């Protein structure tokens, strides 16, 4: 299967009928995910991430566009696609009446996992630290335990492409890190291709090779986490000094500085690689007998990029009634 991309979508579009009119949830999205890549889909609530993933995983029909998973068409070759993928849904998807083990067993059987079924189930239960609870009915689980069980289930059959829709939502930091390291390990060892949505920016930064930021059903920016951050203007260095004017003039001659402006307590500059710029600035100031009180460097985070691109209040604006309802049902079930 050389040279086939794990995921290939072209001009993918989804319209929902709402109250007689139509609502465009996904508005012509195109991207490719290479084999072995971890691709992040970031966007505010209601951006269209889950809708996109549902179409990629064959459970929602698309309005137009084309989607291929490992070279197979998601509409014409559904069965083949289903063989190759695994998914951890955003919303609850367990049978609460069954025990944890029965849920996993159901999954293993549906996916034709026969050899070492027992030991695989033990392994994934251990991974999410639910061995002790394996034979308890899921309805007695806490929200985080249910989420861990769903994650464990996603790893039972060995998919080639894994879809994770906000996988670590509701998990404590330790568990989240454990899941991250397992995801990266699978990705490295099994060359698993992964597409991930998340609202945790550190998660996207830590895991993803590439990221697409989507809003209102459109991709507004795509790139590596580093690329996105540096396209956002590089690092910001704040210098505290009383001799603003003099330092300003001096710094104009230092190469690598993109932008200089005076602030109340000193000077603010931006440039790539701020930690390398700082000693250069210090040396120049020293040589010219200018006094610097302090210097701080701040790298833009993915969160800065995200907020910068999608706006601060979009979240509330587009938290549709469905999202509210979902939050409500989720709260009830978990």
């Amino acid at each position, binding site marked *: 299967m050389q040279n086939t991309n794990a995921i290939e979508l072209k001009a993918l579009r989804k319209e929902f009928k709402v109250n007689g009119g139509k609502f465009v949830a996904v508005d012509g999205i195109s991207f490719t995910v290479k084999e072995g890549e971890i691709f992040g889909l970031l966007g505010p609530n209601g951006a269209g991430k889950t809708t996109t993933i549902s179409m990629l995983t064959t*459970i*929602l029909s698309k309005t137009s566009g084309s989607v291929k998973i490992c070279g197979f068409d998601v509409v014409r070759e559904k069965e083949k696609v289903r063989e190759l*993928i695994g998914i951890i849904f955003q*919303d609850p998807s367990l049978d609460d*009446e069954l025990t944890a083990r029965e849920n996993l067993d159901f*999954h293993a*059987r*549906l996916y034709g996992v026969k050899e070492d079924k027992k030991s695989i189930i033990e392994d994934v239960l251990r991974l999410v630290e639910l061995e002790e609870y394996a034979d308890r009915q899921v309805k007695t689980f806490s929200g985080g335990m249910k989420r861990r069980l769903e994650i464990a289930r996603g790893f039972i059959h060995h998919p080639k492409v894994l879809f994770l829709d906000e996988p670590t939502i509701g998990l404590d930091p330790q568990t989240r890190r454990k899941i991250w390291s397992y995801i990266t390990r699978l990705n490295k060892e099994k060359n698993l291709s992964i597409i991930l949505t998340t609202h945790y920016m550190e998660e996207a930064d830590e895991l993803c090779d590439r990221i697409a930021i989507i809003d209102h059903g459109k991709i507004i920016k795509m790139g590596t986490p580093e690329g996105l951050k540096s396209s956002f203007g590089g690092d910001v260095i704040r210098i505290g000094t009383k001799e603003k004017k003099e330092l300003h003039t001096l710094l104009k001659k230092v190469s690598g500085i993109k932008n200089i402006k005076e602030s109340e307590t000193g000077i603010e500059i931006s440039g790539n690689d701020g930690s390398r710029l700082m000693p250069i600035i210090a040396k120049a100031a020293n040589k010219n007998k200018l006094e610097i009180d302090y210097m701080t460097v701040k790298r833009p985070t993915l969160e800065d990029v995200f907020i910068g691109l999608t706006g601060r209040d979009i979240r509330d604006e587009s938290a549709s009634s469905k999202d509210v309802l979902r939050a409500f049902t989720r709260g009830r079930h978990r």
Partner: protein
Amino acid sequence: MSRSLDAIYTIWLREMLRFIKSKSRIVGSGGQPLVWLAIVGVGLGTAFGLHIGSSSISYLTFVSPGLIGMTILFSSMFAGVSVIWDRQFGFLKEILVAPVSRLSIVLGKIAGSSTIAVMTALLILVIVAAIGVIPLSMLSVAGILEAIVFMFLASMTFVSIGLIIAALINNIESFQVLMNFFVMPLFFLSSALFPITGNVPAWLFDLAHIDPLFYSIDGMRASLIHFSTYPIYVDGAASVAFTIVFIAIATALFKRIEGK
């Protein structure tokens, strides 16, 4: 092929596990028809007189296969429609995204639900035979086996109808209304409580013939108490036809069902 059988078995197994865990369902599905037998059977029996028409069959004997049919109708329909709950709780997505054919999902659901319905029905048969409501002299091994075939056919039909309803509507309120407007007529038109022969008004007689349960109950009567409107092969042929048609419709609708 073996993959499909595995899928059917897996879904069957889940139905079994869920049933075993739910004590109230076990008691409810077996208890309800016996309560009916005791109250409706005895009550209506007095109104109808002791014998049905010119035969020597008592009303209680007559009504027993009807109540077995009722059990199957309610239990199967409910099981089919329970897919709505699976959707509500998100489990349906887990099934839909799996690499198994939609036909095997439907057949698995049917297999599980009808196993439960038929087991309950057999339990009732044992009880009515034990208390002499259906005299042992009427029963034969062949007759019982034939009745079991009718039980399965009826159950498969009504699970399919339940699945069709679940695929077409997606909220629980409209399901309640539908059940009342749909299930009760199916039950009353089935001849479960009173014989539907040439004696009833023509419209009622005709309407009964589009009720799958009519043939199932008539078939069970033919095989268990040797009293029926039609010969057994007519009931059998009609039941098989209904089963195939409804499974086909359920599968077709399931192919289009979406997991969102």
